[in-house]
């Protein structure tokens, strides 16, 4: 093999590691807010991603049937809609279910797991029991060739761009805005926050909705990679929790670092070993690290 080919291979493999990193990060961002900041164990997080994916599918169906000329542009509004629909569902769920359980974190686990089962059955009964795929616009298909021997998948570039956008947004919102301060205050000391005039109910509700909305965005982005079925969400949920927990639940930088290291380990090992062994080795390493540092890679320093 020529030097040139080795170079292209390294470039493509590097990109597939980065691509997996952005996928993991996008999945985890919503949960980093809900689980990391609010402390709610949301087992239905994967289903909120599925909602986002189904919104894109719905848009794709509508475009195909009523406005085939819009095929090249429908995707962008669909992604935006995915955010708002998933967010709205999250808002309602918080109002009806989650807020009654803030003092009983273990019960949230059961309640949201039940919610995830109910949502899966809803998808199965009312949308389609089969796996569905959205019809993608031309500009998301195929590969981008910087040189003749390097192919970079366009959908990977799209997911990457979206992830950067969302991460930056979340970062600014959580750490630089007044709303972020209110969220963090509420999580740290609900009674005191309430006493200084923060409407904690409102903060909780919007925060949860935001997390769900980001999950919807992630789901929408994943329609470019795979298909969507009633149980697609459950495929993502383990990886998502893994990234958040490994990174140190309450820390955004931790989430990014953890997604990066898991993705690179996974994709490199997969290249040199088999995919099952790659998964086993990655998870073993994570277990060992978590045994030594149960709080995860990064922690917020708290004065307790």
């Amino acid at each position, binding site marked *: 093999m020529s030097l040139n080919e080795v170079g292209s291979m390294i470039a493509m493999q590097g990109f597939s590691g980065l691509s997996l990193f952005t996928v993991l990060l996008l999945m985890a961002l919503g949960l980093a807010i809900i689980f990391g900041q609010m402390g709610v164990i949301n087992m239905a997080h994967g289903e909120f991603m599925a909602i986002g994916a189904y919104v894109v599918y719905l848009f794709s169906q509508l475009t195909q049937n009523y406005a085939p000329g819009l095929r090249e542009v429908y995707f962008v509004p669909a992604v935006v809609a995915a955010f708002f629909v998933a967010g709205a569902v999250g808002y309602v769920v918080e109002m009806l279910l989650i807020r009654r359980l803030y003092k009983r974190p273990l019960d949230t686990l059961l309640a949201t797991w039940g919610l995830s089962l109910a949502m899966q059955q809803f998808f199965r009964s009312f949308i*389609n029991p089969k796996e569905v795929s959205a019809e993608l616009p031309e500009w998301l298909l195929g590969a981008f060739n910087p040189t003749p021997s390097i*192919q970079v998948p366009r959908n990977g570039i799209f997911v990457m761009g979206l992830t950067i956008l969302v991460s930056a947004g979340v970062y600014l919102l959580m750490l630089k805005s007044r709303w972020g301060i209110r969220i963090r205050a509420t999580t740290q000391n609900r009674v005191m926050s309430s006493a200084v005039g923060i409407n904690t109910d409102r903060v909780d509700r919007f925060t949860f909705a935001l997390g769900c909305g980001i999950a919807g965005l992630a789901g929408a982005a994943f329609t470019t*990679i795979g298909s969507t079925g009633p149980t697609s969400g459950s495929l993502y949920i383990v990886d998502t929790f893994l990234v958040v927990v490994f990174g140190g639940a309450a820390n955004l930088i931790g989430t990014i670092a953890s997604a990066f290291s898991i993705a690179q380990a996974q994709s490199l090992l997969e290249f040199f070993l088999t995919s099952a062994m790659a998964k086993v080795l990655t998870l073993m390493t994570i277990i060992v690290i978590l045994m030594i540092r149960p709080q995860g890679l990064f922690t917020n320093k708290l004065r307790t």
Partner: protein
Amino acid sequence: MQLLFIDRSRALRGAFSTVLCVTSLWAAFAGAGCNKSSASTSSDPAASKTDKAAPASTERSTEATSTDVMTPPGVEKSTLKAADYPTAKVMTTGLKVDDDSVTVGILHSTTGTMAISETGSVQAEKLAIAQINALGGILGRQIKVIQEDGASDWPTFAEKARKLLVNDKVAAVMGCWTSASRKAVLPVFEKENGLLYYPTFYEGLEQSKNVFYTGQEATQQILASLDWVHKEKGAKSFYLIGSDYIWPRTSMKIARKHIENVLHGTVVGEEFAPLGNTQFGSIINKIKLKKPDVIFAAVVGGSNVAWFKQLNAAGVTSANQTLLTISVTEDEVLGIGGENLTGFFSSMKYFQSLDNANNKAFVEAFKKMWGPKSVIGDVTQAAYLGPWIWRAAVEKAGSFDVDKVVAASPDIEIKIAPEGYVKVHANHHLWSKARIGKAKADGQFEVVHESDLIEPNPFPKGYQ
């Protein structure tokens, strides 16, 4: 109090994360071992959207539909009269047979994950039964159907099988889809001496007096297609990739032996992705690095969609790569999208596009009964054969008794089979042809190769 709460929730996160890791680790190991979960889950598809099959209902007679069903051309109305075959003579083992009817069972999942795959089989079996009834039934008796729901749960399959055999005394059962469900009911059928017609192509290595396998076993599907790609495309190097459970693993084992020992080619890579895996980037890069003449694939379910989409996105298309798959039927194409598959090859014994009179009549009758949008895949066609084989065997034996039906079964020929012609082998599998279809953008396949009739060989020597 507040501090306590924070501490507790942190401890909780720690515990939770450990549980999480251990669970997923276990899942990864289970995959690498012998995950029988759904052998030949080749699909998350099968079945048409216009499913009229009643869910979980019991005691449904298909007689009502028998009047307007289209029957296969060239089959004469049966002239056998029940009076010539007195019930006391044709049934001596307590089965549910009377002077004008006989009861059979249909046992598939109509709820749960597998429902989407199994619905097509239910529809095909009901069509065959309706046609047989319209043609005068079996030994002058109309077939009644009791349908049970296996609910995608293997113990439920076993329980319902027992119910059908012990309580309902059905004369035969058409059913099961995954290997796991078949393995679950097998002891029941053997103990109660029942009769099962099983439609899915599967990994082989099984043979029971009480089961007839109407799909292909592994060697029929694999060997002929490898021979073809070797001869036709001059393929020497192969990259094997499958989902991680029993069916792809057994199939790839057979494929590897055949490539190395018979074709004298090389296997440049063998890879099994966990079920449900959606990230194929690194695997695709490895394949690009090895530059195999042929990618031989058995990826199933949702992974299948991700696999083909990402191949396409990485610039691997039929223009620069030959790919042969044993897990894509017309049903799967719906989810994958024809544009991601165009020009790739699939090895099956049946394609909806087969150009023969039997198949045209079958497709027309199927669409008339189950809706014009129906898509018919390989397993659906195999399920359709079950009732016809049973009918032929019963009439040859002149009896519904399981032992006599089994004894009469070898060498039964079905000339109206949509796949052309099949014959029952003494080992309870079917002689059938292997076909290679080239995927078209519209989701159908163009048949580019057809083998001779292949003898079924569920225990291939030198391949284990």
